[in-house]
């Protein structure tokens, strides 16, 4: 049997990808009469919309309609969880890139040319463009939230050592290669079908209906595949789809809206940048006694998904470490910039960096090895409850740590690097290690549910549908493997169909790494229901016990004393049909055990934790600040992997994406709040040469999930992104070598050549004035 669970299987669309036959929305044939949309964006970051004038635009050749807020039949609000996030600004202008209007025309070029002709008058006001200003003005998109345990004030006061520090990390553009796109087709009675490149078809359905002022059952959202998502098509795809739907409804014609790269980058949210301040108290050995941290997120102009991002940052500030007295306060700062949103890790990456910074400083302060100081503070027996009250009852930290240290030959290379640095005044090398604990489940318990729909046809072929979206992560092949396993058939017998709100309703986004965990179980339930019916019928038909019926290798064996019989799976399916047995079933799953109090910030938000460890080696040039990752060794816990080939790809890809976040990817707004890095010529994601030339990636073996996950596998989408934190730590190590270990290093991310050079210069200055180290 081909493609059972726990085997390496290629992405189901791989051959279509390489031959160019995989269809993305922009590749679908357009029905006659299809119109194209182009958006009008604000070039002002903050102010009041005085007027818009569509006359000149409407008069342009090929223009069919110019739509503004007055043309939305329902509510002009595309907010995912909050409200007052208009599709087209009606009054307030909140960021440069905000959508004001949309031109719909016979051709894309006609639409774009006319969009230039929309006259906009805005009374500009002074924008808030950074976290510090927002904090000073108490400009928040939500009230601050706190995770608290013990008495950090008292513990800090009595701690033998205390250190304070501050640093910041930048945001990150998703840079999915396929830009945001939706294609809306009007049907009978005002029905709309929207093909959307979305991670959240149900939200597309809801928001389209909200803007159209119709029932949800009038809107069908369909998604075959995305050309990358990474969180950027969780909430942001919905407004793009809604704009297309409103235009299709208005004109009665199919409307395609594809955002050109620059518009996409100007208009859509990104990963939240954070500013941090913290105080850490510790003993002479380097054991952390208390942490008091402030995490201030740049939410951008609106709520979007910021509450979840801040909650995840706060619940990941502890990362792998036992911190008896703990306070982390999260601010969601309101700035006049793109409304920041989900991005792989969803606040987790911004949470885990704090302790990595603190432990480096502790090690430096005590003159100890930062690698040992980390392990000393790991969660362990008796020190196994998170600050938000979740017990850690499965812990692979030490295993991952040991594997990465052994595989990476940490001692030998440490000595080698120290020798290199002593001999080289210009180039410096550095080593960084990072342990990971990452919680799996949506922080909001109600989102942890999923549905699936499986049909078995009378030839034994199987159609599979579920609520998850395929964005390259290999969800479809994994779920097909699960269904194949249930029926013991070859995976070629299973046809996965496009995700659709008409087939499986009320779904959660494919996000938070949960795609397989949730939809996999739902599909298993659906398939197993059918299988049970088939078994029951076969037992009656052949007069045997159910236990005597065995599915194997595409066949069904009927064990009857003296007359064993074998049918193909298809023959049994046909037999069941003749016997009037339903061969179609839904399946449903909800994650057990989880609960969360969002006010107290306590509970068990995560079904389980995923673990990992990383070691990175870098080199920096102290003349230019240029850096390079020379080697990375990763170990990632995937439970008992459903598909090691897919999981390996997720780990490698996530790491490189995390490396980009922390190094070369820099978002830059000018003094007026306009994003000036709105394309790949100015915004630099890693290229092939940036991947560590030595890149050893291992799935933690023999580690089936302790919880009842689908076939004891674990989620893999997000956790390995954080393994790239080791690169940042390694860069700090290399920079520290400039001061011969006499000065602690502050390095803000992204560690561009400019920031690395600034850190080098700071260390040089301070090393000159530092007292000889004791």
């Amino acid at each position, binding site marked *: 049997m081909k493609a059972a669970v726990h085997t390496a299987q*290629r*992405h189901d*669309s*791989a*051959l*279509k990808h*390489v*031959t*160019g*036959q995989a*269809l*993305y929305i*922009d590749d679908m*044939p357009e029905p006659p009469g299809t119109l194209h949309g182009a958006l009008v964006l604000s070039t002002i970051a903050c102010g009041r919309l005085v007027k818009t004038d569509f006359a000149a635009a409407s008069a342009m050749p090929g223009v069919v309609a110019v739509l503004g807020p007055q043309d939305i039949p329902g509510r002009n609000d595309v907010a995912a969880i909050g409200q007052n996030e208009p599709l087209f600004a009606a009054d307030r202008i909140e960021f440069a890139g905000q959508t004001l209007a949309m031109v719909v025309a016979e051709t894309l070029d006609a639409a774009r*040319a006319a969009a230039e002709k929309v006259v906009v008058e805005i009374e500009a006001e002074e924008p808030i463009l950074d976290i510090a200003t927002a904090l000073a003005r108490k400009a928040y998109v939500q009230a601050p939230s706190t995770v608290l345990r013990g008495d950090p004030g008292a513990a800090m006061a009595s701690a033998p050592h205390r250190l304070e520090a501050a640093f910041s990390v930048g945001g990150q553009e*998703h*840079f999915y*290669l*396929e830009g945001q796109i939706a294609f809306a087709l009007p049907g009978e009675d005002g029905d709309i079908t929207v093909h959307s490149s979305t991670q959240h078809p149900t939200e597309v359905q809801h928001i389209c209906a909200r803007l159209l002022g119709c029932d949800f059952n009038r809107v069908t959202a369909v998604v075959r*595949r995305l*050309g*990358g998502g*990474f969180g950027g098509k969780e909430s942001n795809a919905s407004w793009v789809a809604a704009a297309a739907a409103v235009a299709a409804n208005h004109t009665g014609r199919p409307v395609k809206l594809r955002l*050109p*790269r620059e518009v996409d980058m100007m208009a859509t949210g990104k990963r939240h940048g954070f500013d941090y301040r913290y105080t850490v108290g510790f003993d002479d050995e380097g054991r952390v006694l208390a942490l008091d941290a402030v995490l201030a997120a740049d939410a951008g102009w609106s709520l979007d998904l910021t509450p979840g991002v801040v909650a995840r940052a706060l619940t990941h500030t502890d990362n792998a470490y036992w911190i008896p007295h703990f306070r982390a306060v999260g601010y969601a700062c309101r700035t006049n910039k793109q409304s920041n949103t989900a991005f792989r890790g969803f606040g987790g990456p911004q949470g885990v960096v704090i302790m990595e910074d603190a432990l480096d400083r502790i090690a430096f302060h005590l003159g100890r090895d930062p690698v040992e100081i980390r392990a000393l503070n790991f969660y362990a027996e008796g020190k196994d409850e998170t600050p938000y009250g979740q017990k850690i009852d499965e812990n692979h930290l030490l295993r991952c740590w040991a594997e990465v240290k052994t595989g990476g030959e940490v001692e030998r290379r440490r000595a080698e690097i120290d020798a290199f640095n002593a001999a080289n005044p*210009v*180039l410096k090398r550095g080593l960084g290690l990072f342990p990971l604990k990452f919680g799996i489940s949506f922080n909001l318990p109600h989102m942890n549910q999923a549905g699936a729909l499986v049909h078995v046809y009378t030839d034994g072929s199987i159609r599979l549908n579920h609520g998850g979206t395929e964005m*390259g*992560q290999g969800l479809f092949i994994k779920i097909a493997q699960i269904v194949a396993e249930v029926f013991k058939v070859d995976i070629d017998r299973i046809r996965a169909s496009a995700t659709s709100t008409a087939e499986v309703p009320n779904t959660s986004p494919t996000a938070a790494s949960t795609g397989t965990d949730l939809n996999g179980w739902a599909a298993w339930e659906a398939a197993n229901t059918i299988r049970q019916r088939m078994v029951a019928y076969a037992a009656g038909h052949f007069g045997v016990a159910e236990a005597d019926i065995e599915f194997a290798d595409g066949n069904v064996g009927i064990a009857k004393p003296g007359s064993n019989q074998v049918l193909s799976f298809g023959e049994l399916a046909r037999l069941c049909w003749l016997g009037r047995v339903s061969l179609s079933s839904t399946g449903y799953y909800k994650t057990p055990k989880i609960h969360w109090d969002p006010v107290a910030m306590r509970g068990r938000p995560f079904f389980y934790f995923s673990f990992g460890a990383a070691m990175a080696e870098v080199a920096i*040039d102290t*003349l*230019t*600040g*240029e850096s*390079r990752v020379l080697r990375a060794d990763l170990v990632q816990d995937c439970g008992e992997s459903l598909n090691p080939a897919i999981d390996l*790809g997720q780990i*490698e*890809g*996530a790491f490189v*994406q995390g490396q980009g976040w922390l190094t*070369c990817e820099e978002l*830059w707004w000018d003094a007026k709040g306009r994003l*000036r890095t709105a*394309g*790949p*010529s*100015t915004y*630099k*994601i*890693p*290229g*092939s*040469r*940036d991947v560590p*030339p030595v890149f050893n990636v291992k799935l933690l073996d023999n580690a089936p999930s302790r919880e009842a996950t689908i076939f004891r596998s674990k989620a893999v989408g997000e956790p390995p992104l954080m393994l790239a934190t080791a690169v940042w730590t390694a860069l700090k190590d290399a920079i520290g070598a400039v001061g011969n270990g006499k000065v602690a290093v502050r390095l803000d991310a992204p560690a*561009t*050549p*400019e920031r690395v*050079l600034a850190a080098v*210069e700071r260390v040089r200055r301070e090393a000159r004035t530092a007292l000889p180290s004791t």
Partner: protein
Amino acid sequence: MADNIRFTLNDKTVEVSGVTPMTTLLDWLRDHRGLRGTKEGCAEGDCGACTVVLERDGRRDAINSCIVLMGQVDGQSVRTVEGLRGAEGGPHPVQTAMAEADATQCGFCTPGFVMSAVAYAGSGGAADPDTIHDALAGNLCRCTGYRPIVEAMTRIAGLAVEPPPASVLPPRTKSVAFDGAFFAPRSLDELLALRAAHPEALLLSGGTDLGLLASRARTPPKQVIHLRHVPELTAISTTSDRISLGAAATYGDVAPALIEAFPALRPYLSRLGSRQIRNMGTIGGNIGTASPIGDMPPVLLALEASLTLVSKRGTREILLDEFFLDYRKTALAPGEIIQAISMPRLWEGETFHCDKVSKRRDQDISTVAGAYRVRIRNGRIEDARLAFGGMAATPRRARAAEAALLKDGFAAAMAAVATDFKPVDDWRGSAAYRLQVAANLLRRLELRIADPGRVLEVETL
């Protein structure tokens, strides 16, 4: 006399009608030909999702179809992902290798990578990492982390690939004009006559800059004069003491002569744009656009290059030093074009080095670029030409630093950089950073001269 664009697409001759010659090849493929395997990822030649292959001169050259105008395609042989086949009619071995290496995830960038890989395999590329990264530098993937793509490239490195079929289209011998707007002269005389007759027309060479008007800005030029078919503009000649490069010769064409004369250019040229850009972009274009951040001008300034400018009035030589007047302003007179760029080879005692500093090693625009020709005799610096890009409104020599270097040595030269330049703050770097890096690059130069074998760049580790 209506000329039609004719070219070979996936082995078939096509005659293009119903679109302007300013339509991009990508738009034509997708919207007019229905070939939608080739993708638009950025429409600015930076992501590679639109990569197709030009089959020319027995080679396969990857190019960005998003910034190529249909007029440029006339007479060419283009292969897209739909035109790939294996010997038995199934997938091409490159496609199979990519699939088998798990080198696809979301798949959107994949056809572009496949075409870059086909160009690589078809050129007999070696399996060493540097060659592979050079071949992939113009393609971005956001999913895989590249490791499996590089692995697929390694697998296809030794692939036996037939040379591309020769074009069946006879080369044009006479000038053509498409839509009365896209002029493609075949001789210098015709070019000069067209230039005089159409002073408003834009000169189109490789189009790696100009193409963005059509692709990203969606405001294609009204008239262009295409320079690439003028033999007098594409010639490359070398003598024992000079190198002369046709202004419309591509980077790919000029690289061997340049690297042979100035070996320090090998890594530098591999960082200029990407393979796709170097297959189209021309050295004259890089000068003619007069961008302050073009990569070639600092090099050419340091190398004491001069330009041959030609018009109906005649020919003149001008030092590149005198060519850049102000931001995007040049000494080019009306009706005049750059015909060739020439420079002396290094004299005895002369050494040449160059640097590029950017956020990403490959396919990035310089924050600061520096190039230096220094003559040393008997341990004494006798002459120095230090030129920088990204430091001023034009690429420029650091004359105060040059003087200080001759008089008082490197420390003085480093200090003098701040009097030479008043750079700007922008997304590529602050003014302070640029000044510091420019000065520090002179320190790197000093170390290079003192100890030529020493490893001084992270990329050589």
